[in-house]
């Protein structure tokens, strides 16, 4: 069947159920005067209860946000119908005293007071059985209720060892699963003799489990007691809300107003109830009773875990405590890794910065040195050029002087032929006096290029020395 077909089929079934019961309710409504006590307004919600069961099964398969929302819509509707039921029932009860001349407000107060008295006298009417038993200190009933819950909790673990049936000898031989069976046996015994054993000291092989079970049971009872106190707080708030609603309705009547639909009354109720609740919830007693319930529940949860650990250990499964140790270790290691990673990154960054700074500094120095070298080279070249020029001048002057001397010598040696002879510059070389270094020609003298080369060699030598 298609999805939408399913919905339509269920819708039809639901509406038919509603129609059937609605007819009954209409009949009851016709008799609505308080005379027909059998026509309970509860019929108004009977159709809902009947049909909703089918719907809830279907909703279970819807899943996701949609399924959750549909379920909440149903829950809200259910609460609304319960309210309608309560109102119709209240009106039915108001009819007789009003017919006898009692003012409606007074009749309403009396009706609410009667309900309140009844609920206080019989908490079992509105409290969960466990809480009611805790209030009345009915230990046997409490134990029975607790055991039901404890067995449900332990069921998966017990099932897993159900095939390993054995006896005490197995436990003595090291079969830890036997302890579960022993515990089970102990539980049965404990259950049958609850009145006698509650205060008795723990004994025997299952002493550890027995102690844990008793402590868990005590913690569980504390939860139920706290639950009873908190439920009473909530119920009292409910009564105060009803009284506040009565006042609100009275005020409306005094202003000439009227309420002609359950929806309108419900909205007024929510407004009044929420305000009353907010005031009460802010009070110290409410905060304390709520905190007591939560704290007691947490306390029991710790004991419940301790009991479960008996099963887990027996099955050689890791316990919550052991896992927690591992998780803690993991967290510490992860924190250390992060811390170290951060430190490494910081060091790496610092190293990079230092490198960059060093490079910059060295670069600057190199640039400065090169600049300096360039300037020195230029200066040197200039000096060399000047020296070169001067040397060249000197050579020329020397040559002239030599020419003059030669000419004088020639004249002395041969006065007649010497006249008019011109001495070629190159000829003087062969006639240099012995032991005297010949003067270099400009081409042979040191040039700026060779000077730079020699300067570079000198720098290289300095660098090597450095």
């Amino acid at each position, binding site marked *: 069947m298609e999805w939408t077909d399913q919905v339509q089929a269920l819708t039809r079934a639901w*509406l038919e159920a509603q129609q059937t019961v609605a007819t009954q309710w209409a009949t009851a409504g016709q008799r*609505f005067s308080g005379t027909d006590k059998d026509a309970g307004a509860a019929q*108004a919600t009977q159709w809902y209860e009947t049909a909703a069961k089918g719907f809830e099964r279907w909703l279970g398969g819807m899943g996701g946000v949609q399924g959750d929302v*549909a379920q909440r819509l149903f829950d809200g509707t259910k609460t609304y119908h319960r309210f309608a039921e309560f109102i*119709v029932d209240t009106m039915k009860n108001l009819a007789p005293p*009003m017919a006898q001349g009692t003012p409606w407000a007074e009749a309403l107060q009396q009706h609410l007071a009667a309900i309140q008295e009844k609920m206080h006298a019989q908490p079992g009417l509105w409290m969960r059985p466990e809480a009611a038993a805790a209030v009345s200190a009915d230990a046997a009933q409490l134990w029975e209720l607790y055991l039901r819950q404890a067995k449900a909790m332990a069921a998966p673990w017990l099932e897993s060892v159900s095939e390993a049936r054995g006896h005490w000898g197995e436990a003595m031989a090291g079969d830890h699963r036997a302890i579960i069976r022993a515990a089970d046996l102990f539980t049965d015994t404990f259950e049958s003799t609850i009145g006698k054993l509650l205060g008795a000291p723990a004994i025997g092989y299952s002493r550890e489990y027995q102690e844990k079970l008793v402590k868990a049971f005590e913690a569980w009872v504390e939860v139920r007691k706290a639950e009873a106190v908190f439920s009473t707080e909530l119920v009292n708030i409910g009564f105060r809300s009803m009284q506040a609603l009565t006042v609100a*309705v009275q005020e409306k009547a005094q202003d000439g107003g009227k309420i002609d639909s359950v929806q309108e009354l419900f909205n007024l109720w929510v407004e009044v109830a929420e305000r009353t609740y907010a005031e009460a919830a802010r009070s110290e007693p409410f905060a304390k009773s709520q905190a007591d319930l939560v*704290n007691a529940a947490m*306390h029991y949860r710790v004991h419940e875990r301790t009991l479960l650990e008996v099963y887990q250990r027996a099955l050689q499964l890791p316990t919550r405590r052991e896992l927690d140790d591992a998780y803690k270790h993991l967290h510490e290691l992860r924190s250390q890794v992060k811390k170290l990673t951060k430190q490494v990154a910081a060091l790496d960054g610092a190293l990079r910065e230092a490198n960059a700074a060093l490079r910059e500094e060295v670069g600057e120095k190199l640039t400065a040195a090169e600049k300096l070298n360039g300037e020195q080279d230029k200066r040197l070249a200039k000096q060399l050029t000047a020296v070169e020029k001067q040397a060249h001048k000197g050579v020329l002057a020397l040559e002239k002087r030599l020419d003059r001397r030669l000419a004088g010598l020639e004249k002395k040696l041969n006065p007649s032929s010497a006249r008019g002879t011109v001495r070629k510059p190159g000829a003087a070389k062969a006639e240099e006096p012995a032991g005297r270094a010949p003067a270099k020609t400009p081409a042979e003298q040191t040039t700026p290029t060779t000077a730079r080369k020699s300067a570079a060699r000198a720098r290289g030598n300095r660098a090597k020395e450095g």
Partner: protein
Amino acid sequence: MFPLLIDPAKTLEQAVAFNQKLLRGIDSIAKIREVDVGFSAKEEVYREDEVVLYHYVPAKKRLLPVPVLIVYALVNRPYMVDIEQGRSMVQNLLEHGVDVYLVDWGYPNHWEKFLTLGDYIDGYIDGCVDFLRQRHGVDSVNLLGVCQGGTFSLCYSALYPDKVKNLVTMVTPVDFHVDDGLLNVWSRQLDVDLMVDAFGNIPGEFMNFGFLMLKPWQLMVQKYLGITSVLEDEDDLRSFLRMEKWIFDSPDQAGEAFRQFLKDFYQGNKLIKGEVEIGGRRVDLKNVTMPVFNIYATEDHLVPPSSSKDLFQFVGSRDVTTLPFPGGHIGIYVSSRAQRELAPQVAEWLKARGN
């Protein structure tokens, strides 16, 4: 005169009509196969453990130069700030040229129960901030903290004032010892150590139940009766389902972080006393010297105005703007007024402060 003139026949008619509407609505719900949340396009840019930093794709070419990092609370999921088209604070910020990033805390696993507030604030937030500083080449970024995320942002700003250019706090609890907040009153008598010992990570359902108990009739009953009127409109229904998904999508709370937040903040009220320690360093709100824009909701039942509004008294900043915004804790993101007014005000405030 007796004011209750409820006619059974008429009531019956109304009940039948109501139930028919309810059934049609549930039929409509069943036809919706997927409830999508989160509207704006985004990309993962950084990850540390389960924490992810998302960058929303900018809507404008010219962006404000300093990015905004949204720090959401650990409770509930951060897609509330971008839940759907037309109801998205992120979308509105993008349209005003804000470069938006969001840190998503994820769902803590059992093995993350030992995560501390130091891990969150000194670790994850700092990691995200450093990533953004490097990515954008800026010394500091803008933080926008929401609810508990606002408290975290305050702590971070006090610890690293040089890394935060401007701080925006929205519906942020600051003074935890106020009596008009039920959570503030209720939490004082809880045995938090026992709770963390019992639960490990605090279940999201447990937290959620506490939030619903703040207004049980309105939140658990009346809301669902009222919604039947919109169940037949698919768009409205989808919006409703998105909100429902968000409300009940509650991650567990890492045990150690929860312990410290409850004990030091809710029970000890140490933030305003300057006694909170994060990662071994004391959080002094006087170190919050950057400009602060504090926005609180006037009808907030989770973080009452009295808890938020006096932030200016505790921080060291001389530039504190306080904005009371009409509405509740959630309405500040999704109400139509918030869409029109809030993001533009945040963007203008940022622009006026060197962005």
